[in-house]
């Protein structure tokens, strides 16, 4: 068939009203204006991408290299949009990414934002995020893996497929592992359906490096390798304040300093997970605050009482004991 010799309602109209009488809210209300934009500001205004980028700056503390890369990508997409409006060729860029970094450095959070930004810029059609791990992609017996992987890929189309701890996909110690099959399907879809979905792999730096070494095809198909740096102590403190504000809590007098001290000790201890550790510390502080208030059965509690974290809530942490014990046991030796 060459082309339709009849009119389908809504086929050439901007809003895809497919059937007569059926009413669909147009997913891209600004798409038409976007097509006539001539300046960067116009594209940004019509796509709301500027707002998302500002929000990113405001809500995410630190992460300077990550933000710079997101800005670059956004700039490229905006310029591509302008090129297209002028009738120049704009090749769809490959936007598959790999996020490496220590635990709790914001990889998932940024991936979620990335889906939204790419959607607003018109690169992704739907802008949802499908977060999976090895279990969702790799099957348990022969012939199980391919349909499973395909199903996940189909679900992610129009959005972002976020594969957490992607290095688990490849298990070199077992040569009959089904992970390899999953990787091959991923590679194929990443190459052929480049404008349908964006794949983001995430994991710890060293293990991702070995993963890419053993899968050179994967490395070359991913255009953006973004490394997430660890947070500095003052950044962690700002994150803590943001988290508390979100939950409608605040620091009482001296509590901020107590948390600062807590973080200094905690960073040096093993299994420190950046922002995730901060969140856990705050959760435990809330627990202690609750039992502190619980002990006073007869007191009338004000709004302020209920939302203030006091220094004892933080200083009761085991981290301080461990730190004190360490300094007492080995007063001379430096911290390991």
């Amino acid at each position, binding site marked *: 068939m060459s082309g339709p010799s009849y009119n389908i309602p809504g086929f050439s109209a901007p809003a895809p009203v497919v059937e007569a009488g059926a009413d669909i809210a147009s997913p891209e209300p600004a798409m038409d204006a976007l097509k006539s934009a001539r300046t960067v500001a116009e594209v940004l205004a019509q796509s709301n991408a500027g707002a998302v980028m500002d929000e990113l700056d405001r809500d995410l503390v630190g992460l300077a290299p990550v933000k710079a890369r997101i800005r670059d990508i956004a700039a490229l997409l905006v310029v591509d949009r302008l090129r297209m409006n002028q009738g120049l060729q704009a090749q769809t860029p490959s936007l598959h990414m790999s996020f490496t970094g220590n635990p709790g450095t914001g990889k998932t959070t940024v991936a979620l934002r990335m889906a939204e930004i790419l959607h607003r810029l018109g690169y992704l059609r739907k802008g949802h995020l499908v977060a999976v791990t090895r279990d969702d992609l790799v099957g348990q017996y022969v012939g199980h893996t391919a349909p499973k992987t395909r*199903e996940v890929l189909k*679900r992610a189309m129009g959005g972002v497929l976020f594969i957490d701890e992607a290095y688990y996909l490849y298990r070199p110690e077992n040569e009959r592992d089904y992970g390899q099959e999953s990787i091959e399907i991923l590679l194929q879809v990443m190459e052929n359906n480049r404008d349908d979905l964006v794949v983001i792999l995430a994991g710890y730096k060293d293990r991702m490096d070995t993963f890419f070494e053993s899968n050179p095809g994967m490395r070359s198909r991913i255009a953006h390798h973004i490394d997430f740096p660890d947070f500095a102590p003052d950044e962690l403190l700002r994150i803590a304040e943001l988290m508390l504000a979100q939950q409608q809590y605040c620091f009482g007098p001296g509590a901020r300093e107590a948390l600062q001290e807590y973080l200094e000790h905690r960073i040096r201890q093993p299994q420190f997970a950046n922002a995730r550790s901060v969140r856990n510390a705050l959760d435990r502080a809330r627990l202690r605050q609750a039992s502190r208030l619980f002990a006073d059965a007869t007191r009338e509690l004000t709004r302020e009482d209920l939302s203030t974290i006091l220094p004892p809530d933080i200083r009761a942490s085991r981290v301080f004991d461990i730190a004190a014990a360490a300094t007492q046991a080995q007063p001379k030796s430096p911290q390991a």
Partner: protein
Amino acid sequence: MMTNPTGRLTQGQFSFLPDLTDDEIKLQVEYGLHKGYAWSIEYTDDPHPRNTYWEMYGMPMFDLHDAAGVMLELKGCRSTFPQHYIRLVAFDSTRGVESIAMSFIVNRPAREPGFGLVREEGPGRTMRYTVRSYAADKPEGERY
């Protein structure tokens, strides 16, 4: 050609229209996804009108957000069964509905021979009538 004036099988939606292009199919799929339907792909080489249950190609596709996934699967089905009838079926899982809400043919064989009228003598002087596809004379898989 009394039983098949258009020379084409007319089952499901849009079957009196010219074949839908891929872009048009995509729009229909988007419409269904917007309504919350789950699409699946079915194929057969027995065009009899009472052949309700066609073979499924893969699993029904739940939780999709975009038509690209359905189109990918359809492409696979078309390359596997280029000379079969293929239809897209949308399942509406709303409680109380729980049935097929949309269904249309997206692939048909190059030549559709149509149906012949079969007469059968009944008891007394009664005649019983039925239709039989000319294609169905050959065994399954060799029909088109």
